[in-house]
């Protein structure tokens, strides 16, 4: 937001504006078409009719980093590819988000020990917003990753000053047999992302500053 970036006083109006901006950002995440390895097959499945990521506003896969908000790194990143991933990340306009999809991008995966050429986790060179483990993750897990990212975006401050709240880590596994993105032992707490039409959302409550 350039000039006003977290410079305005933390009042009801600026928080309301934040909410509107965040809602816009979270509801129209445009991922980049960027499949490196086998995880890309699941990423395609997520975009297709059965799982249909467009239900969450994240189905418009763009073929250029200039038009994308979300980089889903789907597949093994090796030393040769890491420079390309870094460059693509740099070419994306702000605000930009990164999802590390699959065991390889989270921490090296099967190449963790003997992969002489594999980067052991892409968070070594780009900031990662959400890690989705699995080899490959099921489409439901990617959807859960996107929904988690949306909660994370909703908790951000854009105009108003103040401490950014951490998103609510509700550890709900999306389908039986799927490894949850979050710790499944954590119970859902009060500040789950609610529809922004409810103005009661802004009322001081448990988790929010």
């Amino acid at each position, binding site marked *: 937001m350039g000039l006003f970036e977290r410079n305005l006083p933390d009042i009801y109006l600026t928080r309301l504006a934040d909410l509107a901006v965040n809602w816009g950002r979270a509801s129209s995440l445009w991922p980049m078409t960027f499949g490196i390895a086998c995880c890309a097959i699941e990423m395609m499945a997520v975009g297709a009719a059965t799982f249909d990521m467009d239900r969450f506003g994240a189905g418009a896969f763009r073929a250029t980093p200039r038009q994308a908000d979300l980089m889903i790194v789907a597949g093994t990143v090796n030393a040769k590819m890491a420079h390309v991933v870094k460059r693509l990340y740099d070419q994306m306009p702000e605000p930009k988000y990164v999802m590390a999809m699959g065991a390889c991008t989270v921490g090296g995966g099967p190449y963790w*020990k003997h992969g002489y*050429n594999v980067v*052991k986790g892409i968070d070594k*060179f780009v900031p990662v917003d959400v890690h989705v483990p699995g080899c490959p993750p099921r489409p439901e897990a990617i959807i859960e990753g996107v929904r988690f990212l949306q909660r994370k975006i909703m908790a951000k401050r854009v105009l108003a000053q103040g401490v950014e709240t951490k998103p609510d880590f509700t550890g709900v596994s999306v389908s039986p047999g799927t490894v949850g993105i979050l710790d499944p032992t954590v119970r859902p707490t009060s500040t789950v992302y609610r529809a922004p039409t409810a103005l009661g959302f802004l009322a001081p409550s448990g988790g929010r500053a």
Partner: protein
Amino acid sequence: MTAAEALEQLKKAGLGDGVELFAGPKDAALLVTRERVKQLLRHLRDSRPFSCDLLLMITGTHMTEKRAPDKTTPDGVDVNGGVVKGTTVKGALLREAGFEVIWHLRSVAKHHLLAVKCRLPLADPRVDSVADLWPAADWHERETWDLLGITFTGHPNLRRILLPESWVGHPLRKDYVAPKEFEGINLEVDAPWPTP
């Protein structure tokens, strides 16, 4: 055509020197000295009984040395009742360390497969290129050079194909040590895997 039949044919054609049968666990192959490789492969491609018109792949291996199991005599007791330590004799050398290059050939017309092997010394892994016989050999030889460092003399463009140009070393060698960093990209593991 089996490798044994192929060897018979080669001997008839007067090309049997330096070629022997390599009996593998599943299938046999022709084991050739490296001076004869090019000539033999050219013959396998051109002569009528073989007509191996298709090169399926070229592979390379770094073979460690192979020894028979060590022989240890058990501890004994001498005449005074003292213990005599047993001795250990190192097993005989069965195979020297070195490289092995394998050419897998196929004849589309005659419906047979043939494998040709060649052993190269560790210090000087060098063998003739067959990129002029089969164009498919070009990339296979580049890959073998990239990962094992086997030089194919006469190759038109012998440079790395999979790894970046500036990579140091050949990763499929047994003595290869993986780098910790490559051009600013950290390749290290942050923490050891948690043991349960």
